[in-house]
């Protein structure tokens, strides 16, 4: 088979899946560009008769979507930073020092990374409630970090172990103190793993449903995900054109970041998902 033939066959085989994955994007775009009057016509049509960009304005003014996006960014970035600050030293300690009970510790980390908040949700709600943290973004940051930190330590440690200890020791002999050799030599070398771990933590927080659903109460605190969920649930009339404009605004930046970082992501994900 020539490369051209192979390309054709492979695209053909993948096409059903690609269409299914891209269909929602076509739907989002089609609906987001329609005026409300065209959304609720029967039978529905794919192409709008009049392209109406006002949906993209309405979502800022009417449903305060900018605040929801900022809330999402705030909790996701907060959780990522907290997770890294806690996980980097822990992973370093586990990679570089002989510790008693290291085996059981790794097992504990592996087990906790697999536990999802859903089955513990009643306990988490009561715990945050006892701390007075209901409807407070801090509760989300703490919970996201709590559920991500084990995985982060696990992943960072695997990578840290591949960085030769001799490089740090050479810097130490050359007169750098322990902290300086850590900061100047070790951390730059560890950046790829830290980047992938950060991305994992960020996406886990950004895509969360159950914790935000349980711990947030008032409209101005909602994350983008929750805002969209409340827009489509509970009410009899849903302004789908506005909802689709908002989902488009939420998903397209992520898709672009994904496009820009894809080489690192695929490599890093393979590392993280399997190891």
């Amino acid at each position, binding site marked *: 088979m020539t*490369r*051209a033939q*192979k*390309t054709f066959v*492979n*695209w053909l*085989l993948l096409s059903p899946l*690609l269409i299914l*994955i*891209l*269909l*929602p994007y076509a*739907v*989002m775009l089609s609906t987001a560009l329609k005026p409300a009057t065209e959304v609720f016509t*029967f*039978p529905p049509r794919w192409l709008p008769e009049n392209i109406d960009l006002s949906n993209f304005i309405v979502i800022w003014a009417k449903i305060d979507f900018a605040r929801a996006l900022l809330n999402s960014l705030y909790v996701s970035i907060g959780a990522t930073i907290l997770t890294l600050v806690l996980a980097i030293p822990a992973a370093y*300690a586990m990679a570089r*020092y002989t510790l008693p009970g290291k085996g059981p510790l790794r097992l504990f*980390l592996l*087990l*906790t990374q*697999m*536990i*999802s908040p*859903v*089955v*513990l*949700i*009643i*306990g988490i709600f*009561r*715990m945050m409630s006892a701390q007075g943290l209901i409807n407070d973004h801090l509760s989300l940051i*703490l919970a996201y*970090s*709590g559920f991500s930190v*084990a995985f*982060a330590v696990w992943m960072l440690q695997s990578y840290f172990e591949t960085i030769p200890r001799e490089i*740090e020791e050479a810097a130490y002999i050359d007169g750098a103190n322990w902290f300086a050799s850590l900061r100047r030599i070790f951390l730059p070398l560890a950046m790829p793993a830290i980047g992938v771990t950060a991305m994992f933590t960020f*996406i886990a927080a950004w*895509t969360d449903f159950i914790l935000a659903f*349980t711990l947030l109460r008032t409209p101005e605190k909602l994350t983008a*995900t929750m805002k*969209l*969920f409340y827009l*489509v*649930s509970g009410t009899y009339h*849903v302004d789908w054109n506005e*909802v*689709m404009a908002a*989902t488009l605004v*939420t998903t397209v930046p992520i898709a672009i*970041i*994904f*496009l820009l970082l*894809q080489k690192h992501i*695929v490599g890093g994900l*393979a590392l993280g*998902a*399997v*190891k």
Partner: protein
Amino acid sequence: MSRPHLLLPFVMLVPSLALAIWIIGYPVADLMRMSVHAVNRFGRVGNFVGALNFSEVLTDPLFWASFWRTVVWTVSLTFGTILISIPVAFILNQDFAGRGLTRLIVLLPWAVSATMTGIVWRWTLNGQFGMLNALLTELGLIGQPIEFLATGEVAFPVAILIGILAAVPLTVIIFLGGFSSQPSDVFDAAHIDGAGPVATFRYMTLPLIRPFINIAIVLNVIYAFNSFAIIWILTQGGPANSTDILVTYLYKVAFQYGKLAEASAMSLMMFAFLLVFCTLYARFAIRERAW
């Protein structure tokens, strides 16, 4: 190199461990306490009742209905996802024009979240104005629109398909890792010896990715068992609990029906199940990494 004091590594470890233990340990302890006491709907813990809450759960027909639905959900989601992901990862590991683009598209649903996928599909599947009905009508496949989410018999299989779509990206990544770590010289040798593509796949590729299949099964079972968002967004477990799986039913028992003690007992049983599965995963992972 003079090592820092032995205390230092512990100081470095303790904060992250403390957070993980707090966020998991406190809820588990609280659930244990509630599960053997009477708890009113405001969360006040009353008398010790022994195993009463557990027997309440185990005699609740809706619990069993959700339980069996969870089995169907988890098994079909895991099986379907792996069945699709192996050939997809196999293709994505080949060298062809536009591979980067196809990889990107396949992995996209992971980054945009199950919630977004659920919301857009809920609109796409809308019985009257949804685009899927429009598409199927235009293609002449159906005469009149289908109410995809109005009955459990249709909504549940539809939810399974969407769940598979959301689970494919991470599973593909696992298998991509598997395929890319395969030694190419062995395959060259097989090719020279005259093995065709089918024989190569059957007798070489499959055995080599066997450990990755184990990991994919365990991860997908855990993912499917815990997946709350897709069902909650599409149907909220309705109509009349006909699409509830255990996690959505648990949420209702706790926060809508206000039966906190029974919900705690249910939580603990689900937690125990997960723990068993996680231990299985740990065993596979340990065997893989040999530490």
